[in-house]
């Protein structure tokens, strides 16, 4: 179906159009939500909340932009709100500014698949995980991240550097153990 027509039908709250929109974008958006949470169940909760927002505010969507990107933004914001609201995550969302950023010479080959990479990102502490997702994958600037999370851009930078350092180490280790496993076979 034509995207414009689909949006129009969703604005008219036609169940068929809403279901079509959901079926089309849900797998991708669950992937987004999955990166921000620690369990699939939480990711589904975030996505559910996000899609409810999408259907209730779809008349705010500016049809000149890409619908997928608009929905993705809603999902990211919903995920951030979820992390702030949820006790389990809120305790880990403590951002401390460290003046010394860890630097690594590691330049691992990112030869892991998407699911494996996502799993490694989800192993990061929630604060690191959030900032890493926002900067490295969503493409937000540190100033924007600072505004979103209520921290300074310096804190965002230092948190990102630590997250990146950890992740690169893990990717390196994971890749070498994977290679060893293949070699052993």
């Amino acid at each position, binding site marked *: 179906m034509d995207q414009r027509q689909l949006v129009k039908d969703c604005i008219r*709250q*036609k*169940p*068929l159009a*809403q*279901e*079509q929109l*959901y*079926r089309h974008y*849900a*797998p*991708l958006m*669950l*992937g*987004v939500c*999955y*990166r921000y949470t620690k369990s*699939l169940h939480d*990711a*589904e909760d975030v*996505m*559910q909340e996000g*899609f*409810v927002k999408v*259907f*209730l505010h779809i008349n705010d969507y500016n049809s000149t932009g890409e619908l997928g990107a608009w929905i993705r933004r809603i999902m990211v914001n919903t995920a951030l709100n979820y992390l702030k609201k949820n006790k389990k995550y809120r305790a880990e969302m403590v951002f401390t500014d460290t003046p010394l950023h860890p630097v690594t010479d590691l*330049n691992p080959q*990112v030869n*892991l*698949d*998407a*699911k494996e*990479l*996502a799993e490694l990102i989800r192993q990061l502490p929630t604060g690191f995980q959030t900032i890493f997702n926002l*900067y*490295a*994958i969503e*493409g937000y600037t540190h100033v924007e991240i600072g505004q979103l999370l209520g921290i300074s851009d310096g804190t965002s930078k230092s948190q990102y550097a630590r997250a*990146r350092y950890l992740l*690169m180490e893990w990717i390196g280790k994971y890749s070498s153990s994977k290679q060893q496993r293949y070699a052993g076979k």
Partner: protein
Amino acid sequence: MQENEFEKKLQQKMEVLQLQPADEVWQKIQIVVAKSKERKRRFAFFFLLCLLLTGGLLLTDTSSLFNHKTAVSLKEQPGAARVEQVLGTHTKPTEQLQPEPNNQLSAQEKIITDNTTAETAVKQNNLVNKNTVSPVGTVKLKAKGRVGSNVTMAAPDEENTAAADIVEVKKQGAIISADPVIELKNEQDNGIPEKQATVLVTAPGKNEVTAPVIAAAIAPGEKECIEINNKKVAVDKNPMKTINKKNWGLALVFSAGGSATGNGYANKSLAADNYGNAGNIPGSNPGSSGNISLPSSTRTGIAFSAGVKLFRNVSARSKITAGLQYQLITTFINTGERIYASSAQTRDVLFSQGSIKSYNNRYHLISLPVGFSTRIFNLGKNEVTLDAGVVISRMFNSNALNFNTVAGMYYSDRSVFNKTIVGLSAAALINLNPTGKTPFCIGPEFYYSATPLASSGMYATSHYRFFGIRLQKNLTK
């Protein structure tokens, strides 16, 4: 550079990350969205209702403000309506409107200088409610009653609005004041609508007395000026006449009864003509010439409507009317079991053909009835009026099932229904208790929609029909 490459690689990998959500997620989303829609609809309905009620109240309130030329007289019941002045702890009844036989004018002033306390004064006045006495310097008296003689009180510069004209009668440092016009009471035995004014007597910084009196609206007649406490008071000497300058009136309308929409496809020839337009559901082939299934016949359901109506006198017998009301029309059909389907290609609700279940089709409409009301005859003391007109309605929600004759299945699709409906309504109403405090009308009502329920499909030749009892409560006379 190295940093950017790492991020780029990650972005590329993550963009393809897709996970299949559980089926329950979509079901939960549907429920939440539906609830939210329902909440919005309820809020809109509640808002509209509040708006209508506020409008109605304003209309009733402001209607009295338009009657500037209506003089207000004070009628006294025997021994009633006195205004007292309280100075410090000493109460001095300063002004008393006394009853006079044969409705003749009497407005006397009495200055009593005995040193009684406020409480004593309150006790002395047998119309005063003791509970209203406040122990700390303020005394509120509620001397409520009707002043017997026809006395119109007016300020020297204004002839009318007498209830307000009691304001600012000054005597010995006390101020007697009154709210302009508080409330229009129901018509009394003599046919005069009464108004109640609250007279407030204060001694600045010390005590105050509130003494409500009853004033009745009469036609301005010949007046005579007298002075009370250096205040000019116009006195009406003529017999009272009622004038009613209220052009618009307001009524609450409630109807309840049975409703029907006709059988639609239960007529086989009609089904043969229309099955191709019955809508598509999975597995059906609307264009094919296979066997045609027929749905169950539609049975009568209950219906009601509630709203407000404005009316305006155009002659002694007739009124024009306009209103706004909510209508619920329901019917019943027999269906088989419900079929649950989560495919994007299906309609949201499906039922198989059969007669296991009785499904309640509901149609929600917001209507704008416009018409006239005319008195046709009197039944004893009660008037019988004919109320008829055109009703323009908007169907804003329905759960009614349509029928696909080829697949032999029921499905819900609100989009097939006509949203704007024009209909005719008629009611014969008997006005019960016409002179009492709560006049209301009751009688049979009939409504028929000239516009069919849908432009195609099962309901293409079906029309809303309603037959019931209407109860109409006039808020203004």
